[in-house]
């Protein structure tokens, strides 16, 4: 692959994480952005990858199973009692 020219959409797909991670060298980053600027499907793919990160990040709000949570809080209470 020429450093200043991404030859195909398949290359963009392979490099998308490297791009989002800021790991591409400047010339490849520029080539990536030039390709995406003129290629609607690759622009769509890049947008999808960003939305995936957004939805994945929202999973950090998942709840703890109630029985486990109650058991842990009880354990904390017991530990606290033994500290005194």
């Amino acid at each position, binding site marked *: 692959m020429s450093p200043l020219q991404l*030859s*195909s*959409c*398949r*290359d963009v*797909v*392979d490099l*998308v*994480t*490297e791009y989002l*991670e800021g*790991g591409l060298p400047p010339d490849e980053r520029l080539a990536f952005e030039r390709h995406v600027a003129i290629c*609607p*499907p*690759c*622009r*769509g*793919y890049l*947008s*999808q*990858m960003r*939305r*995936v*990160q*957004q*939805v*994945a*990040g*929202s*999973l*950090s709000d*998942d*709840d*703890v*199973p109630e029985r*486990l*949570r109650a*058991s*842990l*809080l009880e*354990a*904390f*209470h017991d*530990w*606290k009692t033994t*500290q005194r």
Partner: protein
Amino acid sequence: MKLEARARAVDPENVELESRLVDALRGGDERAFASVVDRYTPTMLRLARVYGVTAGAAEDVVQETWLRVLKSLDRFESRSSFRTWLFAIFANCARNRAGSDRRSVSVSTLDDAADSGIDESCFFAPQHPRWAGMWTTLVDSWETVPDERLLAGEARANLRTAVEALPARYAAVCVWRDIEGWSGDEVCGLLDLSPENQRVLLHRARTRLRAALEEYVSQVA
């Protein structure tokens, strides 16, 4: 700041807040403990399988981790962040449990033969005289899909299932990077990965999650 918010704000660079959180735990503040349990337990449950722990044993490992944390709180020093310390304890508990079950998984090795997760039929073949490597299909940017829909219960449940279906080493990187928001350097240190391998695993994970979400979006669109 409320303790619940304080726990969520814990960050390796925010030593003072973290120090106050640890002081609250040492002082027996139950709300502080509940907040860290709520913050980190779902991640432990997700990651237990990365260490080879069976689904049935995951809650036991989580219980053991928190008990060890409480017993070791006096020995915690601010040289590492609370979460790094917590997950080091979790990893030890999980490895011990998995070791006894002989099911441990190596995260640090990269299976180069693994498929990329890309549907190659979406691209013209490399031999194509004019369109080699170009898309054969349209790719929707999902710009018309509102955030509320993607962040709603059903889409999140879909993605949660996709994370659970990831190979363990992909899940490890994905959970810490994209769900927990750890930096690449932190994840490399925790999993003993090179930066290159960490990025490859993250790429393969995200590629699969995108495919799963695309399938969901196409069904509900």
